[in-house]
């Protein structure tokens, strides 16, 4: 039962955070809300017996990525005048809801057809570092390897795009 209540709590937080993200004018506020969402999600992962992912979500997402984003927001020193006016924001929001509704309803219809299952915590280190690590390095070696290439590309790319390196004249 506690898990149930926890789920609802986290879910509400996550949705509120997401709403905050898309409603707040200033990205800083949005980012803070988004962090709430991310942390709630981490909680949900824990509820789903994904302990490693719980940790990663907190460290990588809420920690690394979000602090990067926040850092950049601060770094750019965004003033209110830099922000877009977004006068028609509400029109777009409600229009957007109308447009998105079919997609959401379709997805809901779809997931209802999936088999139901319990969410109680599974023991035996399910979702733990060791087991997930075994799966990752045995079954998913190739994706894991190429992710490294991806990160390399991102690295080089970020350097090229944002770097201070003088351009060859």
């Amino acid at each position: 039962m506690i898990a149930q209540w926890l789920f609802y709590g986290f879910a509400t937080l996550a949705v509120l955070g997401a709403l905050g993200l898309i409603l707040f004018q200033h990205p800083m506020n949005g980012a803070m809300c988004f962090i709430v969402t991310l942390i709630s999600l981490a909680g949900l992962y824990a509820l789903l017996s994904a302990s490693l992912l719980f940790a990663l979500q907190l460290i990588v997402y809420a920690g690394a990525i979000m602090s990067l984003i926040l850092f950049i927001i601060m770094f750019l020193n965004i003033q209110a005048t830099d922000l877009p006016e977004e006068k028609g924001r509400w029109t777009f929001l409600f229009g957007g809801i109308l447009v998105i509704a079919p997609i959401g309803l379709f997805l809901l219809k779809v997931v209802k057809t999936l088999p139901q299952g319990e969410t109680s915590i599974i023991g035996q280190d399910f979702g733990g570092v060791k087991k997930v690590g075994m799966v990752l390095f045995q079954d998913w070696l190739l994706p894991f390897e190429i992710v490294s290439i991806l990160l390399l590309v991102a690295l080089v790319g970020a350097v090229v795009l944002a770097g201070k390196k003088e351009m060859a004249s």
Partner: protein
Amino acid sequence: MTCDIVPLLPLGIVGFGAIILMLLAAFEKIHLEVAAVFSMGVFALAFVMQLLPAGPDNLAPYTALFHGMLVTNEFTKVAALIILACGFFTAMSSTSYFRLNSFCTLEFYCLMIFATFGMLLLTMAHELITVFISLEIVSLSIYVLVGYNRKSVTSAEAVLKYLMLGAFAGAFFTMGAALIYGAVKSTGFEAIASFIAAKGLVQSPALLAGVFFILFALMFKIAAFPFHAWVVDVYDGASVPVTGFMATALKTAIFAVLANFLILDVGLKDFWLDGLFYITVFTLFAGNLIAIGQNSLKRMLAASGIVHTGYLLIAVIAVSSNTISGHIILFYLAAYAASTLGIFAALSYLGGKDEQRSTFDDFKGLAKVRPYSAAAITIFLLSMAGIPPTAGFMGKLYIITTAFQAGQTTLAVLGIVSSILSMWYYLRLIISMYFHEATDPFEIVGSPFAPVCTLILAACVFAISLFPIAI
């Protein structure tokens, strides 16, 4: 085990090449053209390696290690050849371009090779997350390439549009993969195929929805209607060699995935026929209608790229795994790649400093001053328009034949109609080049690479059309 290495050799060469170049980039003394030649060498070597006999069909190298996430066969092999050739010619023509436009650094080639690496992976990938990661490798490299000219606002705008929409579509891809995982309990193509064979697609809405989202992401990348709007702006904002590379190599890679996913391995196609039909028709016409209004060559070519996507989609709809196989798609891709790259190669040395010549009017009278270049461009345009005896004609012949054979008469006829419509803007450039007096001297500065490249590609246009006759 020994022969497993052969099909992966090109991949390895390209990967290593990229990393070596990345390391070399640290040394400031290395000249740009050296890097260009180096990357041409990498592509050429990989190309040659790719030609080596690769053993049995549908070989999954290192199955124990990779769990069948990579599969090579004749189809992937040819697709890889096209991609490598595109890379080679882009590198070749870019040297002239960067004589005139000075924003390049060594990382440019490095990223290009990385992108090629991703594309090669894409052709072989047989698992959704592998596809996703490969796609991201390709996309990320190309995002950077698009925005490479940091001084240019349009370039930045292009990368913004591409990155934002690309990531948006990528999110759908992951959601789709999640849904498929939910339905099938796996994301491997083989598992999906056997799941469908056992249960049927309609019985599992989650799978259906997952495939739907994944198709959307792929359709976005090939710019099918209504996901095409970005392509014109992005092509316009990117520098000429990048545009050429994107238009050809990337399209080839995505179509390889599409073919693998829809037809060859998973056999999902039949359910989507109706939907694809409408998408194809709209893609054909939207592309044409956008193209006629354009004044800029790059935008026109981008829009015509949408039309070619339409043709390729006809082929995707029409080919079935048991008859003529996916080679029609590849043939058309090769034909299209040769002509598109050719035009971009020509643009890269005719465009002038900072791409000052970009509209139809800027090329008025080119034939009077540079007859050979104009002739080559004409050949490329005619090939794109599908006029015999160019490669484009053979490609269209194959596609229309297959469409008729598959009973898609309407689609075949609409394809032809769109071909008629496309004459309008292809002819417009020819008319500009030939039927007006020259006002611009069209002086050529830069290395002879790009002109030579143009010439080779012009020859390729005919060679590709003669290729099926030769064998």
